[in-house]
């Protein structure tokens, strides 16, 4: 017997029992179809994230998962593989009864991504699951496969009519990056998405936005009265956004990375998203479009870097040469597995950006992202203007500025550098740091970014997902740089740095020319 077959067909009712229990939007029961279900993302992130949601009691009853992939296997075999992966990757460990209940609703569907028959039979499977569950036929399609399959999958979904959810339900799609490789390909992808799903049902996932500290950026700025009055060009000298990785091209990543590079792989999405959160105006409200409207205005304010000279003045690209990480020798970028020996792809990029708007006129934003740097860290540092050169500062010409640092990962937290007097009869001053660590202050581990983002998608909350115009505007900016690098007669040079160092001298010179230095992490 079906869940809702005994229910009266009355209009939608609200749930009075929820009041006072939960402040977040509620996820609705749905069927999650994962394309590329045998891949790494599914095993390491998606299934453990859904399991953790279930273990927290937040997975709506009847929520089902259908893994769609090309390999031949049974649902039973698929569940066994996922169980092993969950034991390894679940944030809160693995409880057999919770897994058993959750896994009951996991199914496998074998098909080629291009085969219309596979989508017809998927439709039958979805209908059967929805009939058992009852209620609206909510469907969440997750494209966790290689991007070249996005187009045929979307086309087949539309042909089979799977994007039209039955019984008043919704059909949504989650797309993993890359959202194209340049503006034309992003526009094509967005057009294909728009032909199958309306924009408000399209969720472009950027897992950086699901991180606790990224979400805390808005709370810090707009939940505290002390920061916003200072958050402008009168008080802020410049902003740095750093993403450093110790990893190189291990695990066969060279092939993908060498076709992409740091600018397209990280800056176009993650780091520009962080920039938008730091630089945006207060949104009119906390709705998805309220926040995204505020973010898109930041992208629109980005001063374009047109032509090789402008790019050479403001952007440094570099490749690492052989060096050492954690005391062990590592090869140079061009010697890495599956990287072309004559590659002109950049595993390091540093940029100086300007936002042409009222708030940020004259304030440079420096962004750097690199592989094979000395430590793994992502952070945003806001460097305030120095105090006037009178009184104490008259005596100390090299007085350092106040810096507010928001650490995104690892060791999430916030610190503020201030100047303080060193004890003693002499007047000597040094910087001191007020430091807040999430892990120290809150003993409980934060949910994984994918948990939050999956719940949001099930709840219809797109605030932490990128909108079409954000993606395309970011690509428009990035494409100018890529064009100068790869399609001009006199492209800006490719710098070099030894693996294990903090990047090329040219990147230091980029700031030194402005009388600034990179923050030492």
């Amino acid at each position: 017997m079906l869940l809702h077959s005994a229910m009266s067909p009355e209009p939608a009712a609200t749930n009075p029992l929820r009041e006072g229990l939960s402040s977040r939007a509620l996820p609705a029961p749905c069927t999650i179809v994962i394309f590329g279900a045998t891949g790494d993302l599914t095993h390491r992130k998606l299934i453990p994230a859904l399991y953790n949601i279930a273990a927290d009691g937040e997975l709506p009853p009847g929520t089902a998962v259908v893994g769609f992939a090309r390999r031949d296997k049974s649902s039973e075999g698929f569940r066994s593989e996922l169980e092993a992966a969950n034991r390894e990757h679940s944030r809160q460990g693995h409880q057999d009864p919770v897994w058993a209940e959750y896994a009951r609703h996991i199914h496998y569907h074998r098909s080629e991504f291009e085969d219309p028959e596979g989508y017809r039979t998927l439709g039958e499977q979805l209908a059967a699951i929805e009939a058992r569950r009852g209620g609206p036929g909510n469907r969440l399609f997750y494209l966790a496969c290689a991007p070249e399959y996005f187009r045929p999958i979307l086309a087949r979904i539309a042909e089979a009519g799977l994007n039209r959810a039955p019984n008043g339900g919704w059909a949504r799609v989650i797309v993993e990056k890359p959202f194209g490789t340049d503006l034309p390909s992003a526009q094509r992808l967005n057009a294909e998405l728009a032909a199958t799903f309306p924009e408000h049902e399209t969720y472009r996932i950027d897992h950086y936005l699901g991180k606790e500290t990224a979400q805390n950026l808005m709370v810090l700025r707009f939940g505290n009265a002390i920061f916003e009055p200072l958050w402008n060009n009168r008080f802020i000298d410049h902003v740095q956004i750093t993403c450093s990785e110790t990893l190189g091209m291990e695990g066969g990543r060279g092939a993908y990375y060498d076709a992409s590079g740091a600018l397209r792989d990280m800056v176009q999405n993650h780091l520009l998203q962080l920039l938008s959160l730091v630089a945006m105006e207060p949104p009119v409200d906390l709705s998805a479009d309220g926040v995204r409207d505020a973010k898109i205005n930041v992208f629109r304010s980005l001063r374009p870097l047109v032509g090789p000279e402008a790019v050479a003045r403001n952007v440094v690209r570099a490749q690492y040469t052989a060096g050492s990480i954690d005391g062990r020798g590592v090869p140079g970028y061009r010697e890495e597995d599956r990287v072309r020996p004559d590659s002109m792809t950049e595993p390091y990029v540093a940029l100086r950006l300007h936002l042409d708007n009222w708030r940020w006129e004259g304030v440079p934003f420096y962004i750097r992202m690199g592989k094979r740097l000395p430590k793994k860290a992502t952070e945003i540092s806001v460097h305030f203007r120095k105090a006037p050169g009178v009184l104490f500062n008259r005596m100390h010409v090299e007085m350092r500025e106040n810096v507010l640092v928001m650490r995104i990962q690892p060791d999430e937290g916030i610190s503020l550098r201030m100047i303080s007097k060193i004890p003693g009869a002499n007047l000597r001053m040094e910087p001191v740091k007020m430091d807040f660590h999430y892990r120290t202050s809150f003993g409980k581990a934060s949910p994984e970014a994918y948990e939050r983002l999956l719940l949001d998608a099930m709840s219809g909350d797109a605030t932490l997902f990128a909108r079409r115009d954000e993606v395309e505007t970011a690509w428009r900016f990035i494409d100018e740089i890529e064009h100068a690098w790869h399609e001009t007669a006199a492209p800006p040079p490719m710098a070099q740095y030894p693996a294990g160092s903090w990047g090329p001298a040219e990147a230091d010179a980029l700031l030194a020319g402005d009388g600034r230095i990179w923050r030492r992490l």
Partner: protein
Amino acid sequence: MATPDILGLEVPIGAIEARLRKLWEADQASTKASLINFAVYSESPDALAANTALLAEITRDHSCRALLIGARLDHPDSNARAWITAHCHLAGGRKSVCSEQIAFQLDGKAIGRIRNVVFAHLESDLPVVLWWQGEFSRIFEPRLLGLVDRLIFDSATWGDFAAQYRMFAEALRLLPDRLAVHDLEWTRTYQLRLALAALFDDPAAAARLPDIAQVRIAHHPKHRIAALYLAAWLAERLGWQGGLVLGNLDLRNGSRALRVELAPAESASGPIAALELTTEDAACFAVERDPGTPYYRTRSGPCASPHRGLSPADPDSLVRLVSAQLERAGTNTLFRRILPVFTRLAGTESA
């Protein structure tokens, strides 16, 4: 009084802060952290040692300045003593993060100095959470509570519920709304309420709420109050009218008389073994817990072939219960809102 080693170093009350500073100066390897002032008051004889052990666990998840107060109201002598220690845990397997603890033993007339002695040692600017253990006494008065942001107590430990509840209700009447109050007996039903509420997230299920005709709550014999809280919550949220009539719960869901059963269940491993709502046409919405399991089983839909699920159970241990309450924070206005209905159902109006 014998001094258990667990309390740490005995210090003169006037030198507490100085000695704490000295303690940290001697330990450069650890980090002191504090998000709240957590005061724990008890009139039980061995409470300081027992609560120190509890704090050693609670501080794993909640960095705080702990202020333990052991009071012996009828002690013939007037004494005030203090001890300091710290609870340190490895955070992320690396850093040693420590919470300070100051324990006070206040005897006889010294208990009158509680506000001065204890609350002079708060970490400034941080919220004050007071966990009052056991029954309220004459010390429980509005001037003391005026210093507090959050009050935690446990009505399951009360011998004379009606008398204690009246004291609580009277104090609540005099205190500002900003004071968040938490009865751990209500906290014990939190996950159960979440699980039941989740069954009605589907609008079609929510549309059946007016059709509910029967309520069954199976509770541990020591936790009838938790069952009454649940009944009050349902009545307040769903607009059920009525109260306690001749010892029975007499409630109406619109024009329909509700059959309400509060049944003791000896084998329940938690306070509530089952909460089941049934409609006239046999649709069931139930949350049940099998003994010894860490989760609730849920049923929803036709009673004969319901949809089934699992949801986390409410914590059984006192440490986890208090930790869960500290973690949720919030103003707990829902609890205040159900109290008038609870008062009617528990029959404490006329007690």
